[in-house]
Each structure stands twice: as C-alpha cells, then as structure tokens.
C-alpha cells in the first residue's frame, strides 16, 4: 500500500509538470495579446473544425494576416453549440475572444442582452451594410443598430428526381409551381407494390419543418411589422391542414419509415429514388454530389401556395460578432470587414459550396470557373432564391416563443387536434408571453 501511495505521489508530481499546468503555449489572457514584433493579436472562435471547412477558414485568416502588418488573427476551433456556452461564460468573466461566429437569428437578442458590441460606431465610419442581402442585414439589428455582420446563410429549395419524373410521365424540366401541382405530381410519382409504397412522391416534412411551409404559405414569419404575433391566421390554419392531409394520405407507418433516417442525415431515400421530391437546404446538393453522383436531379424554388402568393423560402445563417468586453474591438472590426468582403466571401462560397451573405460574392461565385456546371446551376438557383428567403429572428421581446408554438404544431399532426384550435392556443400563449416580457 505504502509503495503504491509513493508511486502515486510521484506520478502526480510528474504529471503536474506537463503542459496543461503551465498555462499552455500562449498567454491565458486575451488582453495580453501582442506578438513579439508588436502586432496586435486577436482571438477568433469558430465551430469550423472539419476537414472540409477548417482549411478554408484557415486560408482566409492567413491571407488576412499577410495582407497587413498590424494584426494577427489566431483561430480556435470550438465544437458547434458549445462554442456559445463558452463564449457566454467568457463574456461573464470579462475575458472574451475578439471575434466569434454566432447564430444570426439570435443577434438582436444578444444585442439587447449586452453580449455583443454595438457596431454602429464602426458602421458610421465605413458603412458596409449594402454588401448583404437585406433580410440578413435586418436580422442583425436591434433598435436600428447592428450587433453582428452576416457571414453565411442558407435557403430551402425543392429537389426533384428527373428520372422518376420521366418514369411517371412528367416533364423533367417543369417542376411543380404551386402546392396543387405538388400534390398532382406526387400522386403520379407514388409507386406502390401491394400496400407498401416503393416510392413516395413527396412529403412536406422530410427535410424541413412545418414552420417553413407556414412561412412559404403566408409570406411572412410569426411576427408582423408591428411586432405582433400572427399565428392563427387563416392561411396558417390552411397550411397546417394541408400538411396534415399529406400525413393522412401516406399514413403514419409509411412516413415514419424514412423520417429518422432523414433526421439523422444518413441513408437518404432521395438518393436511390425512393423519394420523388424533397424540400431541403441548397447545400444538400453537396451530399447528392458526393454520395449519389449518378442521380439525375433538378432544383426549383419552393412551390407557391397559390399562384402569385410567392415562393417564400426560409433561411438562417451566421454572423461575425465582437463579444462585449473584447480587448481589441477596433482590430476585430478590421478583420470582420475582411471576412465579409467579396474576396474572402467568394473563396468561402466556392470552396465550401456554401451560401454567403455578400451579394456580389454570391453572384460571382455562381459563375466561378472552379464550380462544375451542375454546381453552378444549383448555386445560381440558391443565390436567386436568397431574395425570397425570410429569416426567423428571435424577437427580443419573446425570445423563446417557438417553444409555445411547436407543441401545438405537433398536436395537430400527431394528436389530430383541429388546426384552428391549436393555432388559437399558440396565438394566445405567445401573446401572453409578449405581454409579460413587456412588463
């Protein structure tokens, strides 16, 4: 026993000599941040650690570091989701990094809560707001001031299987334009053997949620221009009933056959033709390209509810923000400007096949030589679609309102609650929440 204790003690002493106990290879405090040659060092946190993304962002950083001799950006990868818990803790401890990539839909809220620096003073000096799609820019505003600069974004499109179209006697170059056509096409694409479906024509909730169709149907998100919740509108009731009718058409068992495969982003039935059409993010294309290269597919905007109601789509994205208390906000701003300028944005867009916030970069990426013909086709469609893409920013006055709506949407689809009743309840709950927060 004694010998073991001594051994353990020796081991402890030895291990505490390791790197983790001497403070790592660099200083602990961001505020110390100067390199030996007097450049300012800024800390940049992202969640882009994969083999695909990391080299791209590292190259952009390297280019920035080489483009001037005042600032050195140091990149730290922190896993998705947890990165923001850590950011928050670091802000609370007054020791935050200088630039962080964060969710665009919560930017206004973070502005209100004092988590991010107000960028208005910088924008007064050089206004870069014109670089970005309007909806993206607006999502960053709290009381008129921006709290984060849009970096990348996404948008939902309709993917359809051209071979299946031909087989069903449909024109592969004429995707459905309205919900009615969508139903018609789906009916034709359905393929049954006995009682089981060999191919499902379309199911609206594979790939996107009910909220996307509500947005698509009404052309607006849950709040109107006066910040009032609009949940139980006639259109929304209609939309929910429409989704429900799909569920009734195919039946629970058929729908559940694919659902969790799609949810977990594995073995996708669209790849082998078991699913005729599917709404999904534009970047879903990269999965088709990499994993089902032989699939002949087309992309189109989401169909309109009725002719003329608009092909409104839904998107999200990320901003680059300066956390409150950053020790080098001026240098951070310089870097953010570079990050969201055409060159860096186009490089990101082309290398990752990702939608970027910068309009010019987005447009020129669509015709970039580095993209294949098919790449270009999808990218151009996505870039165009961004003009019709709405975001769903978390309103500062009712940040967690979706938690009141989602259970009701589920109740309609799962528990057969009448759509009107469920949406009325959601409307009432959200109104109460808004009222309470206002107090």
């Amino acid at each position, binding site marked *: 026993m004694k010998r073991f204790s001594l051994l353990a003690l020796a081991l402890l002493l030895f291990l505490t000599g390791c790197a983790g106990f001497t403070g790592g290879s660099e200083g602990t405090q961001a505020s110390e941040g100067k390199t030996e040659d007097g450049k300012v060092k800024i800390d940049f946190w992202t969640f882009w650690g994969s083999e695909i993304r990391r080299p791209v962002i590292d190259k952009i950083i390297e280019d920035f570091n080489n483009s001037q001799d005042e600032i050195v950006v140091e990149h730290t990868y922190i896993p998705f989701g947890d990165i923001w818990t850590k950011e928050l803790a670091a802000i609370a401890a007054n020791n935050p990094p200088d630039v962080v990539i964060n969710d665009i839909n919560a930017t206004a809220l973070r502005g209100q809560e*004092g988590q991010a620096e107000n960028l208005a003073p910088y924008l007064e000096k050089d206004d870069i707001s014109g670089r970005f799609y309007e909806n993206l820019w607006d999502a960053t505003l709290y009381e008129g001031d921006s709290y984060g600069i849009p970096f990348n974004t996404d948008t939902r499109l309709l993917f359809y299987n051209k071979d299946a179209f031909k087989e069903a006697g449909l024109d592969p170059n004429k995707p459905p334009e309205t919900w009615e056509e969508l139903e018609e096409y789906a009916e034709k694409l359905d393929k049954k053997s006995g009682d089981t479906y060999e191919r499902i024509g379309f199911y609206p909730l594979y790939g996107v949620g009910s909220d996307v169709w509500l947005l698509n149907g009404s052309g607006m998100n849950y709040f109107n221009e006066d910040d009032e919740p609009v949940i139980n509108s006639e259109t929304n009731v209609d939309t929910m009933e429409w989704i429900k009718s799909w569920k009734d058409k195919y039946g629970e068992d058929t729908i559940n056959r694919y659902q969790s*495969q799609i949810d977990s982003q594995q073995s996708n039935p669209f790849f082998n033709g078991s699913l005729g059409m599917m709404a999904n993010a534009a970047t879903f294309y990269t999965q088709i390209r990499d994993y089902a290269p032989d699939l002949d597919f087309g992309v189109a905007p989401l169909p309109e509810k009725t002719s003329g109601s608009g092909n409104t789509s839904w998107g999200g994205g990320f901003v680059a923000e300066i956390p409150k208390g950053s020790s080098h906000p001026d240098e951070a701003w310089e870097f953010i400007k570079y990050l969201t300028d055409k060159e860096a944005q186009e490089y990101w867009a082309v290398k990752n096949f990702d939608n970027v916030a910068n309009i010019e970069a987005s447009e020129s990426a669509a015709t970039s030589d580095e993209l294949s013909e098919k790449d270009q086709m999808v990218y151009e469609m996505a870039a165009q679609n961004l003009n019709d893409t709405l975001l769903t920013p978390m309103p500062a006055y009712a940040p967690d309102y979706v*938690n009141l709506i989602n*259970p009701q949407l*589920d109740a309609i689809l799962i528990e057969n609650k009448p759509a009107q009743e469920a949406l009325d309840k959601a409307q009432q709950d959200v109104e109460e929440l808004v009222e309470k927060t206002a107090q």
Partner: protein
Amino acid sequence: MKKKKWWTMGRRESLQGYIFIAPWVIGFLAFTLGPLAFSLYASFTDYNITSRMDFVGLQNYDQLFTGDDLFWTSLYNTLYFVIFSVPLTTIGAIFISMLMNQSLPGMRIFRTIFYLPAVLSGVGVYLLWMQLLDPGTGLVNTILSWFGINGPNWLFDPDWTKPSLIFMKLWSVGGSMLLYLASMQGISKNLYEAADIDGAGTWKKFLHITLPLITPVIFFDIITSTIGSFQIFQEAYVMSQNGSGGPASSMLFYNLYMWIKAFQSFDMGYAMAMSWILFVVVLIITIINLKLAPKWVHYEGDDK
C-alpha cells in the same frame, strides 16, 4: 476523574473526524459554496449573465408556479421518467449482477460486455440510438418484427418517447452493476455454505443473504440515481426534435427547459429559480429516503 478522561478521548476522536472530512469542507468552501450562494441570490433577480442583475423579489418563483405551463409539463415529464427509470434500473442492475456473480466460463468477457454500454457516452451514442429506434429501418423494430410484433414509433410518438429513453437507460445499466458486484464480493462464502446445509434454494439464499447484505449499495444506488434522473438532460437535448423537447413537448425535461431558459432566452435568473425549486424537491425526497433507511438498510458493521 474517570468521566473527564472519557470526554477527552471522545473529543480527540471528534477532532480526528474533522480532520478526515476537512478536505471536503475546504473544497466546498473554496469552489462550491460561492457559486451556490450566487445562484441562490440570482434566482431573485433578472440576471441575464452579461449585463443585468436587478433584484425582482419572488417574481421568478411566482411566474413559475402561476404563469408557466411548460414548467409544469417539464416537471411532469421528469417525474414520469424518475418514477419508472429508478426502480427499473435498480432491479435490472441487481439482476444482472446476480448473473455476473457466478463462476461460469467466459465470465470476465461477459462482465466487460455488460459494462461496455456504461462507458459509451457522448452525443454519438444518442445519435446511434436514434438510428436503432428508427421505426422503419431501425434494428429494434426489425428484431421485434421477427416475432411478429409491430414496433412502436418510438421517438416520433409522444407516448413512446419517455419509454424510449428508459429503454436506453436500461441498456447502460452496467455502471451500477459494478457497484453491486463490488458489494456482493464482500459477502462471506460461509453464509452461503451454511444456507446450503440448511437446504436453502437459490431464491431463498438471495432473499435472506444477498439482498440484506447489499442494501447499503441499493440505498446508495436509489439515492444517486434519483438525483441523476431528475437531472436528465443530454439524451433529450440530442434526441428531441430541434433540441426543444419535441414531439409535443414529451421530452421537455426539467433540466432541458432550464437550459433553454438559461442559454437560449438568457433568462438566467429564472433558470436559477427553477434549479432551486428542483433542489428543494430532490432534497425532500432524499431526506425522506435517509429517514426511511434505518428500517431497511442493513449495515453489517453497525452496532445494533
């Protein structure tokens, strides 16, 4: 004279007792008490972590009890989970350790296999379970279909989400198996031999020897797994739709709701009030358990 001497001995012993527990007391004062006190105070404020911390009195508590349906939903879901998972996992663990406490060929391998799921942790495992529980192509329903059973929709049916999680918990029951094994190893073989002589069967031996002697560990397991089950979080966060406790709020557990409040709405004061309510609930249950313990927990070493 004699009495005085006895006293000093008692005192000396108490002093030794304090020295033994001193590390914990120091650690508690240095690392735990401060943050706890802070969170208790913050539960009476509108603390948002970064910029605001104004005293609001009992407003958070008032809102929770009178104006927040989701709070009650989350409490219900959590109690449901605790009530089923604690007894089931306890019984499961005892049963498995009984099996494991024999000498059969390959027992070391069996023990390792049964322990393995307890080591697997992290998000990957939950994603794996989503695959296994897939209603159409998942392994679980595939196996059920071999027996002609039409498996449920597991994570897509609000009535089946919590049973799914309990099922998952049972899969990884090997962690507590370890405790019981360690405890069963301590039981003298003589007792079993004596019972053999009296002609007792396996079940009788279990009931009259094994079970009473492992009660200290059963007690430990019940208390800690109750506390742990009340804090179920990550399973629901990863496996529920959008991490928000769906479908139909059936996986909105107490800690998940608290997390949403704290780190999505940044209403940390509110979340801290929630945590103190949970604390009181769990504390009461634990104290009841502690008070009931002498009636059924048998410590071989204690004087009668």
